[in-house]
């Protein structure tokens, strides 16, 4: 079992976390959003092989945060609360 670092609770079992998609996938907030733009926001993913900044929920505390992990080696480079570093 792997431990993931929740910025609020510290290292916890991987089983407590839920993957929430690519970091930086910002919800369109223009007045007119085209179907393609919506589809891109809702469904299209980078799905990187290697280091991949992604959004996760720690289901135990309910907080969302950014986790930088390598999808090939499963190593974790770090995590931060979404309020840090200019997230919207």
């Amino acid at each position: 079992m792997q431990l993931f670092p929740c910025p609020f609770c510290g290292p916890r079992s991987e089983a407590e976390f839920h993957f929430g998609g690519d970091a930086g996938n910002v919800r369109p907030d223009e007045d007119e959003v085209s179907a393609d733009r919506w589809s891109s926001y809702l469904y299209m993913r980078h799905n990187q092989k290697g280091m991949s900044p992604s959004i996760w929920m720690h289901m135990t505390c309910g907080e969302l945060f950014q986790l930088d992990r390598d999808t090939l080696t499963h190593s974790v480079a770090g995590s931060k609360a979404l309020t840090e570093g200019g997230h919207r």
Partner: protein
Amino acid sequence: MTRHYSALSVFKEGLNSQKGWQKAWRSPEPKKRYDVIVVGGGGHGLATAYYLAKNHGIRNVAVIERGWIGGGNTGRNTTVVRSNYFFPQSVALYDLSLKLFEKLSSELNYNIMLSQRGMLSLAHSMPEMEMAARSANAMQINGVDAELLSRDQVRELLPLYNFSKESRYPVHGAVIQRRAGTARHDAVAWGYARAADRFGVDIIQNCEVQDFIQNGGICCGVRTTKGEILADRVGVAVAGHSSQMAERAGFRLPVVSYALQACVSEPVKPALDTVVLSPATGTYVSQSDKGEMVVGGGLDRIPSYSQRGNLPVLETAIAGLLEMFPSFRQLKLMRQWSGIVDVVPDSSPILDETPLPGLFINCGWGTGGFKAIPAGGTLLAHLLATGRHHDISRPFGLDRFSSGRLIDEAAGSGITH
């Protein structure tokens, strides 16, 4: 030289000290140019090459595989074949596949060991039983053989199941598809490879496709570890690595790659003669012809490109298995592995020309594309040969993600494999 497999050729080769058998396929160096290149030597890629030659007469074809053919998910899956889906579009697709499977051994002159032993999806409560009735009805309306079984009928089929009062997952009934079953995974890859090779298709192993050659915004070949190879059209069937290929071609896909695990026990005498799935535990099991219990569970819900599974998910699958079949506690596990599967939000595949003209894709089969190999190959071959959709593949195009016409099998049939 013995090429055709038959009882007579086995007998003759026995007299000949087995010296006349030929290699099942050649290992040629790539030519400079092909009519069609198929990237990925899994079942879908090999079947595509075979049907290009057989259905469309296009024989100047190469399959380019990074490792060895069938070394991806095709050689790692738990070999369940069935067509008991919920939506008519899916049933058209998967039933085409099952029908092709039913005559594949003789068509390919290669024994794929199809065993239509039936598959039971269990219902563990009254509400689940109602959902089971709904899905059996949907299947019957779609023309697929499905029957609702009572608890007693299940008991007859699964004498080793835990029917005691204390059972954590009591059985209220089940849906059975009797035409479902298993087939030998390697044989499907090898059978298609051998038959495609006979038509003149070049199967090139140990050759990685690294990029696409583009000319005027059109795909006209691939850059590989063995150099550049030109083609009029390129098809991609690389499962969990589809997003990498898309990135090279300049677009994104609605795909996330996850590890899916399976394991087998030591071989034992025949004890289970159907495939059993418990949607509640997420566990499914069948007994291989060698006697091993082949066990699978749900996805590792952590995006991954590493072909190894994580322990909590394996524990959940095994815990579910032992609740269902307490006597399996005595079994020792022999092997555990995982494959990287390409999961799409609606759990349905993608078959289409991509945003890069000349480049076509077959992906998104996720946890359940072994059963779809004959259909996936037929349909990608049709797209590559004609540039147009077959009626059966049209609903599975990329445009469904902007039109909203998703085919949500995860919600519809609630089954992942």
